[in-house]
């Protein structure tokens, strides 16, 4: 409480000082961000990049004078892509570090495990997970999903399957909430358009072989299999499908694909595998800023890590919301402004400094992020652009945008 008191009494002085000189707001309480990312575990391809992007974005905000005069302070933790260590880390972030927000939880299992804790302590949670329950449990609008949820994944898959001219799809999914719902929404969209699913099954993780699973699905003679899983199981399934002489094509999500899958399977087995995924707005100014920061921190291209772009956007949109809500605003008030600073009908801005200036001038703003236009739907889920990719002769190529 004393902290609160100090910050409000100082507010007048700060505002005055800030208007006189663009000096950092001394004495203003920092806004503490927990960067809880999958640095190790199945999400490790993306985790470090996400964490470094959060740190880079916070530095950018601080260099522009902070959000509503508040400096952003980042506390980095590894969620290990696993609920148990992630919960421990979140507990530490919340109880010891007293963070105001947790950013960048990646897999649904982790986000679902953290969510009750953040909700109970009025903490903003920004994640890249797609499990539908994450959005239905978000009654106080404290949570924001930066990766398109299962609903959008399912629709994108249905659009791709239709456009490719398939008529007899089967579905296979890893046994977790997100994967089951991805293919579940695909089924919904497909059947709503009058289509039929010829076979469906859920498989268990960490098996040494998926031969019997494939045998069951292939017996229904599908022309395409919508497979929703992760990299290790996807690798094994695609390899065994080839070995068993399957003629059906596969459509898989981008988080289970990428260069690692190609390396594991080689050009022959990967030939023609379809991949759907969200695409960052590469031409946008925000992406260029993000990409430069990413390159500096990790020495690789930020284009390979769409989640890095999403993590970067989390910080910028959060900072803009703090700026709009004011220095004394609590998390509920700040969260309320996320949509106001990023959805259409405002002036398009592509960086924190630009948005801050526009807000100061009393304008409405619409942050166009590095990961996409960042327009949030009624559940707090950013709707991104999807594209269809494929492997062709050992190359990972983009085919077309999916509407």
């Amino acid at each position: 409480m004393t902290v609160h008191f100090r910050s409000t009494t100082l507010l007048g002085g700060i505002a005055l000082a800030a208007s006189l000189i663009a000096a950092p707001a001394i004495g203003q309480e920092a806004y503490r961000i927990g960067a809880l990312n999958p640095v190790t575990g199945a999400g490790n391809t993306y985790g470090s990049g996400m964490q470094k992007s959060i740190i880079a974005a916070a530095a950018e905000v601080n260099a522009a004078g902070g959000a509503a005069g508040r400096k952003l302070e980042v506390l980095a933790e590894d969620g290990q892509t696993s609920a148990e260590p992630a919960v421990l880390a979140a507990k530490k972030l919340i109880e010891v570090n007293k963070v105001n927000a947790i950013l960048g939880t990646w897999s649904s299992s982790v986000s679902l495990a953290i969510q009750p804790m953040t909700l109970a302590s009025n903490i903003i949670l920004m994640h890249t997970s797609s499990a539908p329950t994450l959005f239905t449990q978000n009654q106080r609008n404290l949570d924001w999903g930066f990766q398109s949820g299962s609903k959008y994944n399912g629709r994108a898959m249905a659009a791709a399957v239709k456009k490719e001219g398939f008529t007899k799809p089967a579905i296979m999914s890893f046994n977790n909430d997100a994967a089951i719902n991805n293919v579940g929404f695909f089924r919904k969209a497909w059947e709503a358009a009058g289509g039929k699913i010829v076979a469906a099954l859920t498989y268990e993780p960490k098996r040494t072989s998926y031969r019997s699973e494939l045998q069951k699905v292939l017996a229904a003679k599908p022309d395409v299999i919508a497979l929703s899983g992760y990299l290790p199981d996807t690798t094994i399934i695609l390899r065994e499908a080839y070995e068993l002489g399957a003629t059906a094509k596969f459509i898989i999500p981008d988080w289970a694909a990428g260069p690692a899958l190609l390396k594991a399977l080689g050009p022959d087995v990967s030939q023609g595998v379809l991949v759907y995924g969200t695409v960052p707005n590469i031409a946008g100014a925000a992406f260029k800023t993000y990409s430069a920061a990413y390159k500096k921190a990790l020495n690789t291209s930020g284009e390979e890590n769409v989640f890095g772009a999403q993590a970067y956007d989390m910080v910028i949109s959060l900072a803009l919301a703090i700026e709009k809500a004011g220095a004394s605003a609590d998390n509920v008030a700040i969260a309320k402004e996320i949509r106001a600073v990023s959805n259409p009908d405002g002036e398009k801005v592509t960086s924190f400094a630009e948005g801050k200036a526009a807000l100061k001038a009393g304008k409405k703003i619409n942050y166009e992020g590095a990961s996409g236009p960042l327009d949030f739907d009624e559940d707090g889920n950013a709707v991104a652009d999807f594209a269809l990719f494929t492997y062709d002769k050992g190359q990972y190529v983009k085919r077309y945008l999916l509407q």
Partner: protein
Amino acid sequence: MTEYINLVIAGTVQGLVIALAALAISLSFAVARFPNAATGDTMTVGAYVAVLVQAATAGSLLAGSIAAIIVTTLVSVACYFLVFKKLERRPLVASLIASIGIAFFLRSMLTFFLGFEQHVFQIPISRALNFSGIRIIPIDLWLSGIAILVLAATFVLLFLTPLGRRMRAVAADMDLARASGIRSGRVMIALWAISGVLSAVAGIMVGIKTVVTPDLGWDLLLPAFAAAILGGIGSPGGAVLAAILLGVAQEVSTPFVGFTYKIALSFVALIAVLIVRPAGLFGQPERVR
């Protein structure tokens, strides 16, 4: 009918892969008298050494395998000298907990130096041989052949050589074996070396079938333990047979129970057998102490 034959094939291959790990566990239980939970992670070490050496030697799986066998044998013998030898006369649970600690240590070392990215053996992926619907994948034939060869070699060693006889003597009664002039220390080194070799081969086989990740061996520990227990603790032959039985039971059950519950089903089978035969399929009650 072909459907079931294919399921039996799938189950047999999965069982054979687990059989080697189950054999290593069963051996250590028979001679050293505790279930070695580090077996899984020793397999992982073997798989990593093999996959990395293969990549470094322009795709030579043989070089990778030899390197893996050397490394896991050293790891296994080192574990004996540094940890298990000191706990020899302590209760079983001390060695068991220590072995879990070694498992964590090995895995942490791997992830610390090599990260979590998946590695893949460079093996040509080829289509299955199709005998009017019955499909046999060439790589499965190879793996099964190697598994059978290694298992046969282990059994020859155990039952047809003087070293094997000494090992069995120590397994039956260590003090009596010592009193009869058997150097139990040497027998123990031999046991841990064999366990290391088996772990390496098992790790490589799993790595070829799946992908090499830090969790590779740990994830297989439970089925391997189940097979060792079902086969009769301390009965190497039983462990191998049980591993194959569990594999086949799992896959053949899928048309009836689906793919989520097949794992549970194999454990139901395990419980059922243990109710009827508490010592396992081939265990002799007096062997279990």
